[in-house]
């Protein structure tokens, strides 16, 4: 065991968190440069920058350091998972500021120090606005398709996420799966 080996292990331990910090920094800079108009793009740019940096560090450690190849590959895989999970947590957190209903209600209440009746809140923020905003985001992000009259499901990241969440709900909470599997098969067949 030499100092280089210890240094290499320390780099492995800190690589993912450092790359997440780079991810967040780049994301904030990009969002501010674009005046917050490309929020999702800023998230993607930050994420990609961080993962490229992490991949470069991991490749350096695997190929240029005198280390066990297989061990290096699994350490890199561990760090990539850590990076992905912290980034997911960060995205979930900042997404609350973008789309959380609770934040919107609190914001409306904060603007009205005398308080608001429940129907006054609904005048400012209601289910139709929720539907419009979400459908707009899903359509623009290519998560569903729209032919001018009707909305159709399609294979997308959101759909996969939805299936995962429904599966967790079924496995852990023992709640029935709410989507029709035959419709899901049709979506996959018509991809």
């Amino acid at each position, binding site marked *: *065991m030499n100092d280089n080996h*210890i240094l290499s292990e*320390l780099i*492995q*331990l800190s690589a993912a968190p450092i790359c997440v910090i780079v991810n967040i920094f780049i*994301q*904030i800079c990009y*969002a*501010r440069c674009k005046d*917050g108009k490309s*929020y999702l793009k800023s998230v993607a740019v930050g994420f990609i920058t961080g993962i490229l940096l992490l991949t470069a560090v991991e490749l350096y450690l695997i190929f240029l350091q005198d280390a066990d190849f*297989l*061990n290096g590959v*699994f350490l890199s895989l*561990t760090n990539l998972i*850590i990076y992905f*999970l*912290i980034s997911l*947590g960060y995205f979930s957190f900042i997404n609350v*500021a*973008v*789309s*959380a*209903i*609770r934040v*919107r*209600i*609190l*914001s409306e*209440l*904060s603007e009205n120090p*005398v308080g*608001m*009746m*429940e129907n006054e*809140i609904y005048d400012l923020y*209601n*289910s139709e*606005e*929720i539907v419009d905003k*979400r*459908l707009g985001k*899903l359509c623009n992000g290519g*998560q569903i398709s729209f032919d001018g009259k*009707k*909305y159709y*499901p399609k294979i997308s990241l*959101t759909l996969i*996420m*939805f299936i995962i969440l429904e599966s*967790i709900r079924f496995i*852990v*909470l*023992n709640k029935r799966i*709410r989507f*029709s599997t035959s*419709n*899901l098969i*049709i*979506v996959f067949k018509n991809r």
Partner: protein
Amino acid sequence: MNIFFSGLFFFFTSLMIHIAWWRIRIPKREVLSILIIFSAVILTGLSAILYFTDIIVGDNQSLVSSIIHISHISFFYIIMMTIYIVIYTGLEDESPSLFLLLQILNSGKDGIEISKLYKSITNDTFIGPRIKFLIEEEMASVKDSRIIILSKGQKFLNVFRFIQNTLKLSKISG
């Protein structure tokens, strides 16, 4: 390699215990119970690793290397646990986007019109329960049938206003 497999082994062991417990009875304080299960598993696991230290690093490895290994396993595990808890708490609250996706998916190849989607979601589906939550969590209260924001709610809002300002996002969320 040991870090990867140890982390995953501890995580899936915790998950199995958690699922088995939930199948018998869902505890009242769910998140706290999950934290107890996950903490107990990692503490037991790390104790076992420390006891049989040669499994991880070998007898002739330095103490520093062992500490780094243990830290890496713990870090990997804690991150997986935290994200699992975030996802788990999200299962309780219905997400409007995923609810819409469910309606669209269940419409199949016939598709669904926006009027039907409007009908599937009322103010009581998402906004009503959130107002109730804010009151229960003492972020808001009802005074003379008017809902007012409390200091806890204002502090909660300030955190997200800070994010909105930092990222120059629209102040109108939701």
